């Protein structure tokens, strides 16, 4: 039996920068696309993000990072996800992330990176497609 399922997406900001406008814009867009967005807010540690993803049983994780600490943060997040048997979780990033870091992030398990200038529709479509696969 095919059961229609509302997608649940975690949106949060790991690390110490306080610029949450981007995360809020994306959260709002996903909401308007009919998804349930678990918004965890600022200053999340990787442990908090993974714990929330586990308890909320989300279909994808979207993180906004403008602090420059994306590599160490994502190393930790992806390692913890694997520990909790959620290694195949789609993860998308936004914020300020230099192009040259993208291959390394993808190698860690990040599915997509949406920098400044990304269109909201593009992000929504990405989330719908990648999250629904799971």
């Amino acid at each position, binding site marked *: 039996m095919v059961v229609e*399922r509302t997608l649940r997406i975690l949106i949060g900001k790991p690390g110490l920068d306080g610029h949450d406008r981007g995360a809020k814009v994306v959260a709002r867009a996903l909401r308007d696309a009919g998804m349930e967005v678990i*918004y965890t807010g600022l200053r999340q540690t990787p442990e908090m993000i993974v714990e929330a993803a586990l308890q909320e049983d989300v279909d994808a994780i979207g993180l906004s990072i403008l602090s420059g600490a994306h590599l160490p943060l994502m190393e930790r997040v992806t390692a913890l996800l694997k520990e909790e048997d959620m290694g195949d979780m789609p993860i998308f990033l936004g914020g300020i992330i230099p192009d040259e870091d993208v291959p390394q992030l993808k190698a860690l398990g990040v599915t997509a990176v949406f920098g400044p200038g990304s269109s909201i529709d593009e992000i929504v479509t990405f989330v719908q497609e990648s999250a629904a696969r799971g």
Partner: protein
Amino acid sequence: MDDLIEGVLNGRSRAIARLITLVENDEQAAETAVRQLHAHTGKAHVVGVTGPPGCGKSTLVNELAKAFRRQDRRVGIIAVDPSSPFTGGAILGDRVRMADLAGDRGIFIRSLASRGNLGGLSQATTAVIKILDAAGFDIILVETVGAGQSEVEIAATAHTTLVVEAPGMGDDIQSFKAGILEIADILVVNKADRPSAARTVQSLELMLHLGDGGSTRHHGRLLHNQAERDAETENGRWQVPVKSTVALEGQGVAELAAAVVAHRQFMEQNSEWQTREQERSRREIEMILQARLWQRLRASVSELEREQVITAVARRELDPYTAVNDLLRQITNGERS
């Protein structure tokens, strides 16, 4: 499914989370889960927290959870936020205020969207409570959507209902109105560091005492001190306390947690616990019955036929009662054939 049930009974987070998702999305899964878990439930103290948007429910739940953890009780939290009536989407933001609780394996937080339910909870809330109860959580805090005056569903779902108010939200008359204030087992005035807090407490207390018939029973004297109230409670009547808190600073929270525990003790000593269990079960059966009737209707009368009936009512060719009687007859006929 059996693996998930076993995982839940062993208190494993992943299994709890997965089963909640299943129960939220799939009526059949909900039935299977509840059938297997029901016998393992009935131990948890279900505490509802309701009140208007922005009065501090999430912050208070965060603080209460910490207080109960200090008593070494395992705490489950269900936080409900509204779904969009247009897109079905939702922003579930209660975790923002619960960051303190991260990393504690004795706490499990789940955010739920109301998904079209208007009573302040979501349809699946009762089943989710069962899952957390079966998983061994001692206290389950259920935070409703921001509630106005009449979202009273929580009272039939929880053993103890906290109604949270903030100062400065209207005059004395608000506190005399029927509805949400009547369902409180404990009234909480949060943000009690605000200037008008004392007046809010006063008008709530006055409302409670007038309801008591206090003036005759107590020789025109209002019961002002806690000792007098406790004495009343010992006589078998729960006296709804008004507790002041400043949740952001944790002020008054230990006293509030103590009042919650006192309410449970009171219920156990006065067979009130059984009464509430009776009411909770009654409500649960009614909800399932309602959902099942809808299901049967959809199964035995096609959407086209249902629309035709609706059109007939809209055109005044049929009255709504006759329409419903016809539909009900079709369900029962469908059963026989």
